[in-house]
């Protein structure tokens, strides 16, 4: 029986923008993720996916509502939340002047992986992601594909039960993107809980066990692909997505 690993309740985020005024980026979002599943947040650019994931990973603080990771509240226990999750996004870069091995060791140790097992864990991660030949090279010298592998390796090196991937395939070529998707599936098979955001329908269709369609800061639907098909009488995820996001007259991104 899978257990609930991530709970998001009534989560909202608003901020002030010089040109747009007060913006409600995320509005009253609720969902849960279970162990061993890939939960997809599917939405267009600016729909609120990244803001939602940043709040769950404690990079941003919610304006209202809350989220819990393994029962730890993002507002009250942010360090425990971060210890239990790995956060990856295209915008989380690596320290250019450290080597891959140094980076992994730093993340394992600061994220409280047991000190006596860190060395073995780092070498095991290097092996798993095929970084062996480059582990001693500075990050700034690596190719984009290799940097991205190191980035994912640093996300998982402390063996967190929950992983967040925010549009991880943005900017990658097809082969690297497929490679990454395969890696994410393997992590799911290892029993990890994975939150995955994308605006690419095929990616969501291929990877996600459940999908939440987010539009203008609100969750419009949340179910497995079959459930979404049944609810909309549409077969393709693209059509399902269009069904949910058209006709909404919310003005979440506009000035109040």
């Amino acid at each position: 029986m899978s257990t609930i690993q991530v709970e998001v309740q009534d989560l909202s985020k608003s901020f002030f923008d010089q040109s747009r005024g007060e913006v409600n980026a995320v509005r009253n979002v609720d969902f849960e993720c279970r162990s061993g599943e890939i939960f997809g947040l599917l939405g267009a650019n600016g729909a609120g996916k990244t803001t939602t994931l940043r709040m769950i990973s404690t990079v941003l603080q919610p304006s209202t509502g809350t989220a819990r990771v393994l029962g730890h509240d993002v507002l009250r226990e942010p360090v425990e939340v971060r210890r239990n999750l790995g956060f990856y996004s295209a915008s989380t870069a690596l320290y250019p002047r450290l080597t891959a091995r140094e980076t992994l060791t730093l993340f394992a140790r600061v994220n409280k992986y047991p000190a006596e097992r860190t060395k073995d864990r780092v070498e095991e991660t290097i092996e798993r992601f095929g970084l062996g030949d480059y582990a001693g090279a500075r990050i700034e010298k690596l190719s984009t594909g290799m940097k991205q592998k190191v980035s994912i390796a640093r996300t998982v090196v402390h063996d967190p039960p929950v992983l967040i991937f925010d549009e991880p395939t943005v900017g990658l070529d097809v082969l690297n993107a497929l490679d990454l998707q395969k890696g994410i599936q393997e992590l799911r098979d290892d029993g990890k809980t994975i939150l995955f955001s994308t605006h690419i329908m095929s990616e969501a269709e291929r990877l996600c066990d459940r999908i939440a369609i987010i539009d203008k800061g609100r969750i419009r639907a949340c179910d497995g692909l079959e459930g979404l098909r049944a609810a909309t009488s549409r077969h393709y995820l693209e059509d399902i997505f269009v069904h949910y996001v058209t006709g909404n007259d919310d003005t979440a991104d506009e000035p109040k």
Partner: protein
Amino acid sequence: MDWTAIRLLYLSELRSALRERSVLINGILIPLLMYPLMMWVMFSAILFVTARTESFASRVEIAGLPAEHRGLLERLEEEGRVDVAEVDALPAAAAAAYRAGIEERLLADDLDAALIFEPAAAGPPGNAAVSLLSNGSSDQSQTARGRLERALSAERSDWLDRIASRHGLEGAEWQVFEVESDNLATGIEMGQFVMGMMIPLFFVIMIANGCLYPAVDSTAGERERNTWETTSTLATRRIHIVAAKYLYVATMGTVAGALNAAAMVLSFRTFLAPLLARMGGGDGSGFAFELPLRSLPVLLLTAVLLGALIGAGMMILAAFARTFKEGQSTVTPLYLLVVFPVVLLNDPSLEFTPPLAAIPVVNVVLLLRQAIAGNLLWLQLGITMLSNAAAIAGCLWLASRVLRVEEVATGAFEGNLFQFLRRQFHPSAR
């Protein structure tokens, strides 16, 4: 406090920094090598110019040399490298025109110096009014003047001796008193005076330099590289991340200051002492550049205090920048604010009073100057430590307030420290 995380992050910042060329250049190489290099260049240049000047053959003209002073020509010959042209005594009517001609030749660089003897109406034979003409804007002319002065002075002294002897007087009877000047300061004290004037000034500049790049790199630079978000997902409190960065910035500033002071003392000993001895014509025992042992802890303490204070100030300002360039321009006013008063403080008569000891940065400079001179003023030392500790605590408190605001931490805040403070006091102002 999560000291393990702070230590790991601190070491990782240091490791990164030491692999960055700009940090190595500004924080280590410049403080360490600039002064030895500068002084070596200065020393070599002065030696070169001196050697060149000494090798010049001086073109000299002497007019109206009395028969009693023919010895002057022998002396000039002994001096060497003096080509003398002699002109007979001139009638009074032609004297003015001759002098004008000489002046013209000196200014045109056709002649280096000239001596014009005009017989005196009274006094023993050989008594004359002597004009020594030269061109102060020419090195060769200055050298010629020096050579003539030395020979003339020796000739005059001999001539007076001869006259006195003719009147039955010995030297001791007519040379009634001699002036003997005696500098009571030891070479070490003179060296400490010079070091006290120069080291504090460059010490502050180098600490500010040492802090600048790390402060900008660890805040604005991190945003520009998109590593801030990566860092903020680490399982430790944000304050620990900031503490590690702050310790790194303060360390780099302190190291730059300490290295600079060591390099300056070494440069003074190696290059400046022999140079001063050579220029003063002494035997090399004039200046001794030695730091009193008890000033070393004060030097280290001042490096730590300044590194901690300037580092904190720079980090607060740089926290509002989103790119490295923006960070540099944000921090530069603080750099100038720190360095400018130090330049004004370079007045040796300024006394280190307790009220001055309460002014951060100023007090550190004056404390250091006193320490180099071997004076430890305990009351001022105590006040200095307290006032700087208070300033550092104030800066850290402000830094924690600033970085607690999500917009600033994530780089979404559009404005600087002053706009931030305005918004804190007037929340409606946006």
